[in-house]
């Protein structure tokens, strides 16, 4: 057994979780290698030191507050969760990636808008349609919601046809909103309960 292998087994050995050949190989290696014996002694010292840390003592009774809050309506909890999620910052890798992604998308849109094709052209033509609608839209409103809807359908039917040809991603939108309802479920509710045999031991 090499020292490298031995170092990875020392932790399990310390907890008495090595058996059979691996245990025999390790004890044999420890007999021969002073460096690994020292490593074992160090880890044992650390384990003992951690175990001897004084336990934190609770100085107040949490029961009244817990009972009051547990039976209180959960009305404002979403606000609390929102406040806490606002304090959450994703890891730096994700933040950097998001930053780069935003710049790349913006560049693509600007460049292709100038070239008159791709997603940039799509944005340009859409903004043109919206601007055109704003004028006629006021008049259409007076003729009722139903008519406005027909008008919108007429105006946008050809646009959506050309949009799907250029950006098929639009079709995925309804799917995107679906998992968010699942996400709000607290993790605790789908607690997996299995019999933990060893706990009885």
């Amino acid at each position, binding site marked *: 057994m090499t020292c490298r292998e031995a*170092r*990875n087994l*020392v*932790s*399990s050995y310390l*907890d008495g*979780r090595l058996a059979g050949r691996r245990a025999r190989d390790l004890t044999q290696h*420890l*007999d021969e290698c*002073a*460096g690994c*014996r*020292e490593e*074992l*002694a*160090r*880890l044992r*010292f*650390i*384990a003992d*030191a*951690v*175990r*001897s*840390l*004084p*336990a*934190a*003592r*609770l100085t*107040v*009774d*949490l*029961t009244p*507050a*817990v*009972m009051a*809050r*547990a*039976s209180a309506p959960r009305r404002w909890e979403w606000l609390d969760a929102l406040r*806490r999620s606002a*304090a*959450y*910052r994703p890891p730096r890798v994700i933040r950097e990636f998001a930053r780069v992604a935003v710049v790349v998308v913006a560049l693509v849109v600007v460049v292709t808008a100038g070239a008159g094709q791709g997603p940039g052209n799509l944005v340009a033509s859409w903004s043109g349609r919206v601007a055109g609608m704003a004028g006629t839209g006021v008049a259409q409103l007076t003729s009722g919601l139903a008519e406005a809807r027909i008008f919108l359908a007429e105006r946008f039917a050809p646009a959506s046809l050309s949009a799907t040809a250029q950006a098929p991603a639009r079709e995925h939108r309804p799917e995107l909103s679906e998992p968010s309802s699942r996400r709000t479920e*607290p*993790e*605790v*509710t*789908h*607690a*997996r*309960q*299995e*019999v*933990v*045999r*060893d*706990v*009885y*031991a």
Partner: protein
Amino acid sequence: MGAAVAICEEVGARLAAQTEEARLVARCRGGDRQAQEILVRRCQERVYRLAYNLLEHPEEALDAAQEALIAMLRSLPSFRGEARFETWLYRVTTNVCLMRRRQLCARTRLVTDLAADIPAARAGAADPETAALRGETRAAVREGLRRLPAGFRAVVVLRELEGLSYEAIAEILRIPLGTVQSRLSRGRQMLRDILMADQRVAWPSMRGEKQ
């Protein structure tokens, strides 16, 4: 052999079911407010201790303990008594704490980074048996634990400070048994690296003598 193990397990499970805690939990699930109060009072010390060890921040631990106890009461209906109550309670608490720790880290990353830069107090060449020095080692160990990444810290805390089995830790953190073993090994090595760089730790003399 298998039958004998099964009988032993059944007897063990029956004994566990007869314990007072199990009966108390059953009453709580039935919506008995008085029983819930007793259960909270009985669990709060354990929950706070674990929260403190996972978060290493007294006020935050107090908040987390409250939150965990509330979560416990609310999710009792989903506890069907298949796992041991204590394992389940540790899971609820650990979930709350790890979630909070993530948020706490985001808010206080700067502060802890600065604190880590403050040079560690140097221990004089005193008798290694003096209480002061042991106190220094203890402070260094606490700080070392705090500097472990959350996943490793949780495994080390559950193993050393709560004295749980690998199986219980796997169940609490919902990770495979092999991951418990490797994280524990890696976590201890990280802690060793941190402590070896810390002048306050009074290492026992070791010349690699045979065990």
